[in-house]
């Protein structure tokens, strides 16, 4: 297994869904500042248009429009007739991340890992560079989350998809209602992500006009510790980023923690103290995360934007 980078390297708050059959969106959504854009070949594309969507996504990936932007492609599930063609289309175009839906166990990930290896060889990509984002949408997936998240060095994230999961659990997913039915699943995904040191993403919020409901849900998942959320409309990006942004006070404190740690190291002290309290390694790591998040969020300590 290759050594993995921690997920802290790039912000991963927002993952914007774009139907792979929508030429206009594929031509324009790069401006909205989503941390990741996800071209979808699965549920948002009708069966009749799977072939043309594949071509659109392939060409988009190769186009200067998307050069330098981190793109995820959601392929069709592993047991569909579309899966292999989807992989060929996107690996040949050098896709950065493949999102696999309906992941129920680690074996699916291993299978995808192997397929990607073959295709990387076929199309001349550097082996191992295509990463995987697993979407868990069933009871099995939730229960196997840790195994899924650690199944391959290609794993960069694990996401929860509520609709199919709720059906599998014989309940419903209704954003406006009490969300206790997602609690266990969310916790499972979260724990798996932390054990595997990868990102975790929460479910989409379908009602684009319900800003209040969206922000309520975001507050819940932020508190739980989620890295980010899948989104269905560019209008959701800014509120999500704002909600995840640390406050100026938090940023200020983070700077002080980092400064105290640097100071302690300079004078050779093993123990870091700030305001009479001991600061240990996890707190310092968290402070670094806060500062990085502040930078991408545009938060400044004194005045400035937002």
């Amino acid at each position, binding site marked *: 297994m290759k050594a993995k980078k921690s997920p802290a390297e790039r912000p991963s708050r927002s993952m914007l869904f774009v139907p792979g059959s929508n*030429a*206009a969106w*594929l*031509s*324009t959504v790069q401006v909205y500042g989503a941390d990741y854009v996800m071209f979808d070949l699965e549920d948002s594309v009708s069966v009749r248009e799977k*072939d*043309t969507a*594949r*071509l*659109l996504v*392939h*060409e*988009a990936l*190769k*186009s200067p*429009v998307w050069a330098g932007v981190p793109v995820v492609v959601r392929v069709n599930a592993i047991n569909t007739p579309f899966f292999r*063609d989807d992989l*060929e*289309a996107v690996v*040949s*175009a050098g896709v950065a991340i493949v999102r696999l839906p309906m992941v129920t166990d680690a074996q699916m990930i291993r299978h995808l890992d192997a397929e990607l290896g073959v295709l990387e060889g076929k*199309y001349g990509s550097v082996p191992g560079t295509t990463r995987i984002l697993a979407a868990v949408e069933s009871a099995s997936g939730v229960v196997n989350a840790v195994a899924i998240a650690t199944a391959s060095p290609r794993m960069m994230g694990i996401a929860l998809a509520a609709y199919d999961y709720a059906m599998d659990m014989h309940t419903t997913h209704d954003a406006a209602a009490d969300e206790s039915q997602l609690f266990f699943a969310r916790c499972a995904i979260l724990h798996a992500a932390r054990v595997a040191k990868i990102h975790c993403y929460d479910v989409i919020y379908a009602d684009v006009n319900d800003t209040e409901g969206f922000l309520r849900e975001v507050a819940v998942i932020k508190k739980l510790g989620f890295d980010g959320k899948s989104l269905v409309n560019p209008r959701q990006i800014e509120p999500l980023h704002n909600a995840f942004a640390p406050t100026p006070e938090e940023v200020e404190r983070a700077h002080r923690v980092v400064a105290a740690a640097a100071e302690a190291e300079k004078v050779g002290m093993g123990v870091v103290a700030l305001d009479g309290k001991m600061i240990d390694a996890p707190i310092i790591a968290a402070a670094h995360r806060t500062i990085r998040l502040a930078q991408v969020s545009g938060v400044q300590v004194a005045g400035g934007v937002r």
Partner: protein
Amino acid sequence: MRIEVDAVAGTLESSDALVRVSPAEELRIEVTSTVEAQFGAEIRRTVAEQLDRLGVTEGLISVQDKGALDFVIRARVQGAVLRGAQARPDWRKL
């Protein structure tokens, strides 16, 4: 690649293009575009080049462009041609 049947790919939505192909004895390309004045020549070039890469030497290809970017036009031409030729794409050669 030979176009065997009539086929269509794309839509008439803004920023997309609708491409129709049908079998014919020789190659004929028709393009109408909402950005004809600014990009008409470039679009015709893109379409011709894409047909060349697909090895299409006969057929009637009609493109109704609604200001699509280059990569969209390519993908729509590919889509219509592959459907018309009832063929699978060679991802290396597209």
